[in-house]
């Protein structure tokens, strides 16, 4: 018994230690040596959700320094971090409702808390502790001495701001930054920014009407806000620098169904066109009413190479969300998790990327080893589908998640129910899975159909050997599989569409029967792990060698498929209701289109009208990327969009650079 306990303790500590080592490593990689050596401290939280956890949060908030930059006070100190116990997942990719935060009154929120009872005692206790820490923080900031009068004035106002609506754009931005900083500080990751054009507009309008502010001054304030949020990008980022989940969502309908298209929408687009920064980034919610002028501005912004915005078809997404289970009255406020996974701002604690991705090609690999050689193609396809269902079931698991007293403060249903935001308190906690490498599987099956079954050029035995030996002695078949088949993923062809649709259908049906932590699960066709999982995966029958990246989302693998074709293909796919966790076409667009935005806009509009889900356009040309890889010093500001987020090209690991260069080459030929 003792030994067992020892073992358990050992396991737990080693997990904790591993976690700590990783955290310190990241700090050393991404901070100044000085900060990492002398200031960095991580606080280990053994009991998330408990009063002691809240006390730890309070301690971190109390001990962290504030940052004075760009005219605002930011409450995030990257040298202090909270680490949750190994086995507990940090809360990732959530977006608070800043509209609610800006006009919140902390006292009123605390007054409306339910009676403290046995079952909500810890929850209410944690809220009291954290609220006090927030109030103390604001007070401490206001009591500090400042050389700059701007900061002085802002600091003095801060305690008062906690208990009232903001009166100006400056105040609103400051209040956002105050709470946003705290969310990062207590260990949440990928803290989204939400609909800044919609949320901030009333404050801007008030200022303008009172003659306190003009367009350019307001733009200056937004610029300072963005620069400040992007300042700690490396340490805020998860795997790759730039992957911080700081999304600003523009456009889309408001509560009354009217399009948000105000001066701030324009301001943000102009700013990103001018700034060329990778973090924060923009997502544009488009619908049929999105004005031509706003479209054009978005294209100009993209053409400048900042990788923003990514476009999402809000009409289609909102429809599917309602059919999935989100309430009709909530979907107008759709936002996204870190990259592209839809959620409801402020109301969702959806964890949209907690599982390892469903690796589509595993289904075929397994089928090949199981099957009898006499099986016909139809039988093989059935087997693949069965395995795909099994693979799907294996990745969706229950997980233990962190708690969030701060998010709970700004969620009415948490306050009403007396439950934490991530533990039954929020309105929605659907879970999201991702399907990786669908194009690779589709192309592999099309190859088997044609070359094994129809033309008899390749045997099933050879296929097995190829997967095992990575095309050793079969270079000819690699060539055949990679480029000879005229049917391939991305081609708007009946067979290709049907096969893709069937496989998507299999995952959809399987997922439909699963739950995680008691919640329904959705899935998407865009997985960020196409490089990392590809690295350790064996060869696939689409001509991909072992170790090579999988296809990026639902983008074609072939250079013969041009933008019109792939947009047509992606619009023709019908996305099942639960296939709503991000379905992005990622395309490197020839620069000529960007110089002709009046012609590109109708192309995009038409594709969205026909049912395109999400679109990410990149604009770099291959020659520039190659040169940038060789001479990074010449391209300090080259920004590229990687998997839903943008990053400086120079910050990317070599294999990502190579992948981008290869893809830019592919599409240039198109």
């Amino acid at each position: 018994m003792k030994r067992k306990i020892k073992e358990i303790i050992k396991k737990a500590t080693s997990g904790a230690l591993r976690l700590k080592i990783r955290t310190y490593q990241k700090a050393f990689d991404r901070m100044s040596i000085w900060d990492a050596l002398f200031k960095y401290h991580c606080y280990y939280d053994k009991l998330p959700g408990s009063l002691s956890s809240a006390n730890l949060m309070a301690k971190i908030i109390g001990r962290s320094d504030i940052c004075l930059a760009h005219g605002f006070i930011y409450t995030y100190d990257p040298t202090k971090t909270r680490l949750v116990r190994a086995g507990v997942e940090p809360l990732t990719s959530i977006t608070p409702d800043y509209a609610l935060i800006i006009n919140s009154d902390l006292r009123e929120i605390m007054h409306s808390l339910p009676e403290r009872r046995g079952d909500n005692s810890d929850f209410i206790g944690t809220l009291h502790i954290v609220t006090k820490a927030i109030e103390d923080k604001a007070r401490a900031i206001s009591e500090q001495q400042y050389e700059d009068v701007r900061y002085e004035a802002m600091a003095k106002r801060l305690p008062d701001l906690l208990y009232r609506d903001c009166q100006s754009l400056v105040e609103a931005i400051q209040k956002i930054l105050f709470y946003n900083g705290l969310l990062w500080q207590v260990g949440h990751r990928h803290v989204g920014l939400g609909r800044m054009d919609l949320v901030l507009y009333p404050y801007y309008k008030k200022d303008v009407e009172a003659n306190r502010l003009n367009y350019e001054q307001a733009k200056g304030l937004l610029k300072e806000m963005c620069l400040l949020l992007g300042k700690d990008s490396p340490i805020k980022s998860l795997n790759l620098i730039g992957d911080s989940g700081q999304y600003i969502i523009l456009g889309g309908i408001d509560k009354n169904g009217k399009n948000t298209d105000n001066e701030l929408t324009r301001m943000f687009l102009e700013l990103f066109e001018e700034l060329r920064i990778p973090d924060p980034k923009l997502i544009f919610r488009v619908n049929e009413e999105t004005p031509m002028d706003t479209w054009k501005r978005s294209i100009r912004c993209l053409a400048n190479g900042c990788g923003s915005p990514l476009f999402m078809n809000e009409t289609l997404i909102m429809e599917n969300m309602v059919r999935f289970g989100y309430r009709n009255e909530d979907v107008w406020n759709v936002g996204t998790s870190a990259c592209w996974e839809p959620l409801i701002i402020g109301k969702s604690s959806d964890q949209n990327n907690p599982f390892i991705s469903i690796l589509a090609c595993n289904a075929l690999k397994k089928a090949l080893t199981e099957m009898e050689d006499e099986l016909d193609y139809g039988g093989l396809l059935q087997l693949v589908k069965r395995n795909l269902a099994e693979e799907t079931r294996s990745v969706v698991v229950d997980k233990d998640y962190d708690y969030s007293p701060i998010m709970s403060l700004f969620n009415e249903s948490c306050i009403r129910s007396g439950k934490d935001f991530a533990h039954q308190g929020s309105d929605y906690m659907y879970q999201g899975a991702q399907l990786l490498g669908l194009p690779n599987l589709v192309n592999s099956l099309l190859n088997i159909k044609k070359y094994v079954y129809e033309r008899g050029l390749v045997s099933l035995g050879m296929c097995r050997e190829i997967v095992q030996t990575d095309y050793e002695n079969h270079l000819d078949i690699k060539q055949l599989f990679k480029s000879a088949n005229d049917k391939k993923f991305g081609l708007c062809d009946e067979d290709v569409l049907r096969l893709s649709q069937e496989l998507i259908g299999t995952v959809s049906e399987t997922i439909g029967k699963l739950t995680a932590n008691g919640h329904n699960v959705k899935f998407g066709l865009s997985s960020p792990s196409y490089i990392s999982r590809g690295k350790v995966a064996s060869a696939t029958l689409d001509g991909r060698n072992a170790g090579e990246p999988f296809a990026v989302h639902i983008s074609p693998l072939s250079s013969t498929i041009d933008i019109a074709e792939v947009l047509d293909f992606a619009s023709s796919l019908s996305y099942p209701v639960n296939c709503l966790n991000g379905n992005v076409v990622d395309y490197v667009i020839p620069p000529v289109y960007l110089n002709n935005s009046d012609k590109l806009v109708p192309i995009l509009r038409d594709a969205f009208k026909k049912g395109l889900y999400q679109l990410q356009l990149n604009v770099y040309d291959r020659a520039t990327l190659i040169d940038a890889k060789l001479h990074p010093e010449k391209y300090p500001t080259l920004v590229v969009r990687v998997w839903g987020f943008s990053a400086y090209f120079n910050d990317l690991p070599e294999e990502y650079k190579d992948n981008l260069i290869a893809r830019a080459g592919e599409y240039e030929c198109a």
Partner: protein
Amino acid sequence: MSALNVISIQRGCIYDGPGVRTTVFLKGCPFSCSWCCNPEAFSGKEYYIDNQKCLKELGVYSLLCESCERKGGARSIIECPFSVCAPIAKRYDSEDLLKELLKDNSLFEQSGGGVTLSGGEPLLQWKPLVPLLSELKAANIHVSIETTLYMRDKQIVEHLIPYIDEWIVDLKLQKEHTKEDYFYVLHSNLGLLRESMSRIAYRLVYVETLQAEKVISQLQDLGINAFELLKCHSLAKSKYDKLGMPFMDYTPSDTAYNVFYRKMLEAGLQIVKHEI
């Protein structure tokens, strides 16, 4: 009914007429400009041969190559499983082609675009084009045609006029062209178009052998005062390789191109520049 011989269909084109267009490239051309970016149109060949894909050339052994003529076998390379051989053109009857073109009908509407017939010289296939054109007309789709207008039989041009919304006339003013009656034919066909009040745009591919002074006077003779100046490029090299045709790079220097452009402007001509 005879079918149309199509080299390729390109959707999402933004330079061949108003709005976003689907351009149909048709086989056949009376000219054979050495800088042409669609040499397959006049090459007379039926297949591209991409030796970069040939395993024998690459030195990769394959059992599948054993029966190939390149290995002394009986199988023609047209049957190559590695797609070394690919047909240059595809035959469409007008119904199928129309179906293909209608895929972008809503895009045409949104962008004010339509279909552009190009080539080669599309007028050479005027006969099978007529049923397609009348269908396009019936579907209310804007049609542009990019043509040299080198068609001796005036009646053909006359016959097509009602179906075409815009004529993009590719001017063959380069000295390399030796059709003696070129200007005569062009004059007379232009006359027809002008009489019928057709919309006409002009294009000229710039290569360094063009002499500005001569071009200016030729344009004056033709009554042309605005045109698009296209800078010749070398993007078609791989096509020449696959056709087994020698490739000569006619890409002009920026200086020569700009000098020519300026001279045109000084002569009072209106020019839109296109560089790729």
